[in-house]
């Protein structure tokens, strides 16, 4: 009993202290709940509106996962094309590198202007966000086939450029890279979906935050933020677990 408590303390003392500081800050300054709600108020709001929050959280999660998946598919397909045609990869690489340093939030308003206000725009934003990292990771994965394996393939009469080589060797070789891309991107996709919802006013946790704030329901707004943070951590944990579980199968 005491040892489990101690374990929790060594692992989570940071978060516990953060919570305590929050509570302390709110009660000592006697702050108006419109400015900063207390932890209890936030948790209560979460519990009282559980259905509502669950629905909105599900919506955001689905949009984020959908965008992530679309970006992943697109990234893999274009990477495969680039792999088979070196000229194309030469043309795309500088762009991919340049676009990697794009501050994505600066482009959310532009995508909104082009695609309009709605959930589909949130989907497009997360797709665009996910595309380039997936492309870069997948392409370098395809190109990572070890020399011994290439030699072996050539020795049985399989060229190292064609479809068969891609299907049986290059594609599976890239799987760990793709898992890494997913792990890194998953929490970001969720947060960017949130930003987009917030800016567009599309349904989801981002919009809950926005509207609750303009209705001066700060406990609700903070509850949405807390929920989003927990979801993001969960996304990260899920994909890390996935990554860990399958990566070992790629070590000979």
């Amino acid at each position, binding site marked *: 009993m005491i040892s489990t408590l101690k374990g929790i303390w060594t692992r989570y003392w940071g978060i516990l202290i953060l919570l305590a500081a929050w509570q302390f800050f709110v009660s000592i300054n006697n702050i108006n709940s419109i400015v900063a709600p207390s932890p209890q108020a936030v948790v209560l709001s979460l519990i009282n509106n559980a259905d509502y929050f669950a629905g909105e959280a599900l919506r955001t999660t689905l949009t984020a996962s959908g965008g992530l998946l679309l970006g992943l598919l697109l990234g893999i397909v274009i990477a495969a094309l680039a792999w088979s045609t070196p000229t194309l990869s030469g043309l795309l690489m*500088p762009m991919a590198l340049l676009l990697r340093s794009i*501050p994505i939030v*600066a482009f959310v308003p*532009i995508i909104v202007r082009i695609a309009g206000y709605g959930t589909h725009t949130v989907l497009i934003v997360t797709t665009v966000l996910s595309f380039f990292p997936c492309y870069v990771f997948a392409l370098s994965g395809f190109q990572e086939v070890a020399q011994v394996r290439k030699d072996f393939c050539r020795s049985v009469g399989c060229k190292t450029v064609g479809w068969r080589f891609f299907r049986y060797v290059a594609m599976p070789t890239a799987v760990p890279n793709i898992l890494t891309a997913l792990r890194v991107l998953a929490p970001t996709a969720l947060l960017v979906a*949130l930003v987009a919802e*917030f800016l567009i006013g599309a349904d989801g946790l981002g919009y809950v935050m926005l509207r609750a704030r303009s209705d001066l329901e700060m406990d609700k707004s903070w509850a949405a*933020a807390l929920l*989003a943070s927990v979801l993001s*951590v969960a996304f990260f944990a899920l994909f890390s677990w996935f990554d860990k579980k399958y990566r070992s199968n790629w070590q000979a």
Partner: protein
Amino acid sequence: MTVAADLLKWLVGISTLMVFWEIAGRQAWLGGGLPPLSGVFAYAIEPRSTELLLRSAGITATNASYGFVIGSLIGTLIACSGQIWRPLKQGLDTLSTFVNAIPLIALGPLMIVTVGEQFTPMATAALAVFFAVFVATLGGFERVPNVHRDVTRAYGTAHWRALLLVQFPNALPSLIDGLKLGVSTAVLGAILGEWFGAPAGLGVLIVSSMQNFQINLLWSAAIIGTVMSAAAYFLLALLQARLLRRLGL
């Protein structure tokens, strides 16, 4: 030879993108949302808009730089403190992961309460940078060869001295990687922070031009933000190459 080939690839790649953009803009493939590149350019070099853009970019750059410095200092210090006093490490890890997961837009309102509208962009930028640097530094510490640890232990070196002489130099390449990542994150954080009622900056410009259908201004601001973050990234990459060569890594 290969440098020339790389440069050529870049030139061809970028010009293809620009030509494609121009055509797409002229034909209005994406409606009014994507104006021709030449139009954006013509708009941006008008004296009045140039002045506005540069002033905003300057403010965002200042915000991002302060945020970058503060965030990387805090990130490095926290990662180091976990090395000096081991029991801290696990709790710091979870705390940082969680802090990173809190959406910046959720923190915006909190920042306004605590640091004020003026300093919110700096704070969000610092937060965004903090995590990138923290994670990279931790990763660097994990890569310290066991032999090195054993040596310091065998000599009974004090924790902080071992940190300074052995662990930190070993973690440096990884730390610099983190800084490189962090520099574009800083721009992103600053722009986002400016959305919450900051008086001026690229973020303000971007949101107001979105709402007022000033499409050329919107594109100019977004491009300047990109160029800024790309330039900072390459500057750091250059510095990294120099430094690593000096250190013989």
